[in-house]
């Protein structure tokens, strides 16, 4: 019996000699944001979302002229908490507008393959996309929140001028992060799961609104504060309430903020994990 050489056939790792650049996600984020900022509708959405800042600033100015008005509309931590909480609908709309197509479009058109045929890793790609949405959502939450703070501080130095009030800056940033990070991750997961941007955007709304309504029903049925854990909105609000130290709403009054924070953190990490496993350049057709 004669024997012949059998070659083991397998894929071999390519040892690229040129090291990868350090901040490889930057071009993805930069180009994505550039494309968004060139859209009039995007700018319009941001502009509308900034209107409440001016309304609040007028409110603060009013209280400096008529200090007795502060009894009705006090300039305190709650002002900034309420402001951020009220920015939520704009953040959701921005998520659907700017985030729904971020991955879905790439996966539908094969654009992902183009990205990954460059010296980029999947993590770079995802991080770049996360940054696009993070910046967009911060533009309607954190940035206006900080502008409101510094604007209010300069308008009412007697109320917000003390150095201790500078603590509001990390508070605003922390609550904005609690709003923006889980939302960013969730929108990107929906975008990765759906092939159409429209479906991704609506899917995100389905999950967000669905969890809020489910909470409303569960709360009415059980009157248990822990029902709040099923609502993304309620957990965000509870975390915000804890950060700013404001009185919680009756639906979540007894919900420990640590639990709410844990839910948001789990949501964020879970979404990142799904993103990592789901985003593939090549779809296996069975």
């Amino acid at each position, binding site marked *: 019996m004669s024997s012949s050489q059998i070659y083991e056939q397998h894929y071999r790792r390519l040892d690229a000699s040129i090291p990868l650049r350090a901040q490889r996600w930057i071009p993805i984020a930069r180009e994505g944001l550039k494309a968004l900022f060139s859209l009039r*509708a995007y700018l319009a*959405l941001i502009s509308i979302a900034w209107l409440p800042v001016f309304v609040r600033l007028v409110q603060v100015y009013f209280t400096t002229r008529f200090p007795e008005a502060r009894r009705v509309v006090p300039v305190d931590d709650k002002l900034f908490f309420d402001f951020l909480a009220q920015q939520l*609908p704009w953040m*959701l*709309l921005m998520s*659907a*507008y700017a985030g*729904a197509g971020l991955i879905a479009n790439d996966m539908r058109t094969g654009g992902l393959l183009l990205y990954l045929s460059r010296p980029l890793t999947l993590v770079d790609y995802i991080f770049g996309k996360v940054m696009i949405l993070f910046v967009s959502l911060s533009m309607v939450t954190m940035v206006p929140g900080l502008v409101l703070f510094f604007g209010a501080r300069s308008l009412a130095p007697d109320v917000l001028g003390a150095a201790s009030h500078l603590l509001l800056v990390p508070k605003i940033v922390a609550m904005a992060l609690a709003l923006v990070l889980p939302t960013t991750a969730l929108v990107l997961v929906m975008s990765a799961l*759906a092939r*159409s*941007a*429209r*479906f991704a*955007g*609506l*899917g995100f*709304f*389905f999950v967000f*609104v*669905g969890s809020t*309504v*489910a909470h*409303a*029903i*569960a709360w*009415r*049925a*059980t*009157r*248990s504060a822990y029902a709040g854990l099923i609502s993304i909105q309620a957990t965000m609000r509870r975390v915000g309430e804890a950060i700013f130290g404001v009185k919680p709403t009756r639906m979540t009054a007894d919900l420990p903020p640590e639990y709410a924070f844990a839910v948001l953190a789990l949501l964020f990490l879970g979404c990142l994990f799904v993103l990592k496993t789901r985003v593939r350049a090549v779809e296996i057709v069975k």
Partner: protein
Amino acid sequence: MTSETLSLATRPLWPATKDVLLISIERMLPRPRSFWVFLLLSLPVAFGALLRIYPPPGLPLTGFELYGMVIALFFVRNLLPLVALLFGSALISDAVDSKTLTYFLTRPISRLSIFLGEFLAYLVTVLTLTVPCVVVTYLVLCAATPQGAGFGAPDLVQDLAACALTLFTYGAVFALLGVSLKRPLIPGLLFLFVWEGFVANFPGDAPNYTLTAYARSLIRHRPAEEGLAELFSKFFGVGESVLVLGFVGVVSLALAIWIFSRREYVISS
């Protein structure tokens, strides 16, 4: 090849509509998006089952009251308008996006047939997804309770009609958005959450100009309002609500058909 072509006349409306309907249902219903929507719509079933298996101590509501909350808050007020936005706004624009509209436009059928067929397919699809979820939710929450499953049977049928009307009206409105705008999602969401969400709970006559105020009036056994809605929400008679929703739906459909019939769709590679 012998010519088997038919005489040169546009096909009659209903047979053509039926053929479009059959194709469109097949393209709408057995799709992953329908599956996900069905999963979301059947959440109350899981919720109800959980409550029945592990009833929380001192549950203050009867099964029928819980069902009332689910149908009013979950279905009619929130999820069904979203379902209508998802499927309704996609009616023609999905075919434009997927570039398959040309297949319909190059057949001997009127554009009215195409639109009606697609809209009927939408209705069949969303009702196929919604109706079993509502019925099963009702059974899970009400069967074998002191009141029994028969207690609210007429309400169940009335609620199904309310769901159908809600889906019809919102679907028509979003179909109108879909044929008029390139990106109907954000305007649709603005309509649902800014207009419908806030204005329905404004004082005075403001709720008269929202659809949700009429849709929620259709649920006779709705739960008591809470929060802002408790102060301001307005309810209308069933007849008035049906009339208004029907009227808005029909007018939106007519407008959508008019726009679709006149519009050119430039579909290119």
